[in-house]
């Protein structure tokens, strides 16, 4: 649809951050990478598709923010020192930050599709996608939803263990 095409039309590159293993630093790296790119003068957004354990809002100190609507869909939360990093995470949609999201695959897939097509990202040089551990529903759905756009590639994070 026209709306789907327009919400990601202004995004120049999409970067997936993956690992397989949990706890190796995907969210930490995604956040630092976004900040580094911003320092280099780029427009950056972060899409946090870790639905069970969203860490990015807390890392950027915006865990108490709310998401608003506009005509093209959801407005991302702007984080970082200059409030210039566009961020979307399930963390903003929960009633309490410690509320548990205990969902099966199909429900997760539906929300990820919405995060990809219904968020008004605007013009971004880079959209960094932080994923949960594993190689499951979230990963399959994210890649499928992003396939029509210019998926730049994926970065793999690991520890030496």
């Amino acid at each position, binding site marked *: 649809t026209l709306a789907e095409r327009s919400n990601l039309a202004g995004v120049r590159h999409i970067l997936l951050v993956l690992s397989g293993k949990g706890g190796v630093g995907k969210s930490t790296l995604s956040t630092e990478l976004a900040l580094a790119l911003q320092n280099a003068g780029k427009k950056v957004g972060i899409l946090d598709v870790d639905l069970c354990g969203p860490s990015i809002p807390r890392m950027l100190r915006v865990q108490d923010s709310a998401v608003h609507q506009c005509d093209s869909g959801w407005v991302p939360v702007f984080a970082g020192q200059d409030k210039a990093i566009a961020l979307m995470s399930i963390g903003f949609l929960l009633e309490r930050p410690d509320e*548990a999201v205990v969902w*099966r695959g199909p429900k997760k897939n539906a929300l990820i599709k919405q995060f990809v097509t219904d968020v008004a990202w605007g013009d971004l040089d880079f959209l960094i996608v932080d994923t949960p*551990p594993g190689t499951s529903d979230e990963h399959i759905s994210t890649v499928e939803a992003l396939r029509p756009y210019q998926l730049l590639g994926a970065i793999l994070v690991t520890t030496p263990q």
Partner: protein
Amino acid sequence: SSSSGDEALRDKRARILSRGLPKQKPIEGVKQVVVVASGKGGVGKSTTAVNIALALAANDSTKEVGLLDADIYGPSIPKMMNLKGNPELTPKNLMRPLKNYGIACMSMGFLIEETAPVVWRGLMVMSAVEKLLRQVDWGELDYLVIDMPPGTGDVQLSVSQNIPIAGAVIVSTPQDVALLDAHKGAEMFRKVHVPVLGLVQNMSVFQCPKCKHETHIFGADGVRDLAKTLGLDILGDVPLHVNIRETCDSGQPVVISQPQSDA
């Protein structure tokens, strides 16, 4: 009158919704099931599960202990227990668990190549978990320790809806983002009516091997504070020690190889 009408409506709704859910049935021969979970990845669930299983067996040599690796995507148990190979089938077509250090183990890792990824959606994962629970010849076990994957999704739901669980142990590091996820893990077990036995604070402190100076790399006492908030016990406090990681990577878990150490 209207409130009893509301209650009747709620009961009817609950009955209709539960018709699609699997019926909870204990695994034949298994007395008690303990799950080790966290919510957060990489905090030491598998390490803790392996050492709990070994400690249970070491504390009482008359008890039979089993270890199930329910982490379909990233099975760590085979490496940690130094086990490899495809399970044999019994005449009744059940998989025979692989044994080491006296513990009967089953894992997705025995059914696939070490480096093969499992890129499956929830439904396939559910059926794999069912097979790992019920199509294994566990024999008579006093304890079955189940190592869960990170998160609060399909696997956790499938396991808790399929079998009665005696209790859950939640592992976390003291770091804020880990505690957030551990809290969600605890709430998940509350939602599915599984008793939480307590929390384990892992990677609590690092002691320099040279000068013995202690650093709380992931923060100090975060798990103790969370335990207080949730009204749970701290079951253990484990330091970040190179021995624990080394012995796990080499398949000789620290409880077996260095029973006298601080870890």
